[in-house]
């Protein structure tokens, strides 16, 4: 019974993430100029999905560790530290890349979508199936830094 629910959750996750990304594409509608851009964005959105299926295929058994208070307490500190490290290091990486290549992330919409869709998919997958708190910390950090970068640090 439990297994079936988890499986349904997996399929629903993939569906919802596809929908969210299609929506995001339409939000960035102004930057889409040619038919080629549309193809590239669709491809970058689809990028994580075959990989997710492959990972799920291999790691079919080790899922859902007991989400006890003890497990949470044990992983709280390392997860928080990883979150902070991930935020700082990916912000620094993005700033460095922008300085080095003299280009803005918003001008390269495809890469923004690629990073975003890959991180969101693995985040949701990890949250629903494996519940590894440290991985959760890293992925949250990457997403948060991407959001901070787009919101505050780019003009």
């Amino acid at each position, binding site marked *: 019974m439990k297994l079936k629910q988890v499986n349904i959750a997996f399929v629903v996750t993939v569906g919802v993430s596809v929908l969210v990304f299609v929506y995001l594409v339409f939000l960035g509608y102004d930057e889409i100029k040619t038919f080629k851009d549309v193809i590239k964005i669709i491809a970058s959105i*689809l990028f994580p999905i*075959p990989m997710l299926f492959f990972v799920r295929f*291999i790691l079919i058994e080790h899922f859902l560790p007991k989400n006890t208070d003890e497990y949470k307490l044990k992983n709280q500190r390392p997860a928080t530290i990883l979150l902070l490290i991930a935020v700082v290091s990916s912000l620094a990486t993005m700033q460095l890349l922008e300085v080095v290549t003299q280009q803005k992330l918003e001008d390269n919409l495809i890469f923004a979508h690629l990073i975003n869709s890959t991180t969101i998919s693995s985040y949701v997958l990890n949250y629903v199936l494996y519940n590894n708190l440290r991985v959760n910390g890293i992925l949250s950090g990457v997403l948060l830094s991407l959001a901070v970068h787009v919101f505050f640090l780019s003009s």
Partner: protein
Amino acid sequence: MNQIFNTSNEKKNTSKRELLFTFQSIIVTGLLAFTAIAFFYYNNLNIEKGIKVVFAPFLSVVPLLFILSILRDLRNGFKEGNYNKPEIMKFGLITIGVTAAFTGITYLLSEIDALEVLLAAIIAVLSTVFFLRSKIKDILGMSIITGIAEGIIIYMIFLF
């Protein structure tokens, strides 16, 4: 009692793997159709002989059907337990290799300038996928199909 529970649980794992494999092949089919449409519109392909378009699929579909009907299953099917580390490494590397190879193959597909040739090539790849799907029901088939999908996507993102 415990025995019954265990076997049903393991059987579920196998069927879940099979379901994932089916989903993956559906995704690959969709991606191939997407590739055909993208190349057709973007490269402005012309149709040289209409009759060739009709007969292009038969080139690979007929051999596929013949092979499927005479061949027995080539692999033992999906494993029920977990894969060990060397196996994961090996099939991960196979996936990366197929991805690289398929990025190249997609590049070759983009060089084709007649619709009937493109159609024949895409149907040939599609037949290979269906062959893997129905006869090589194994992690090997899964890694090849994943490689095909990722190869097409990587070509579309970075090289198109």
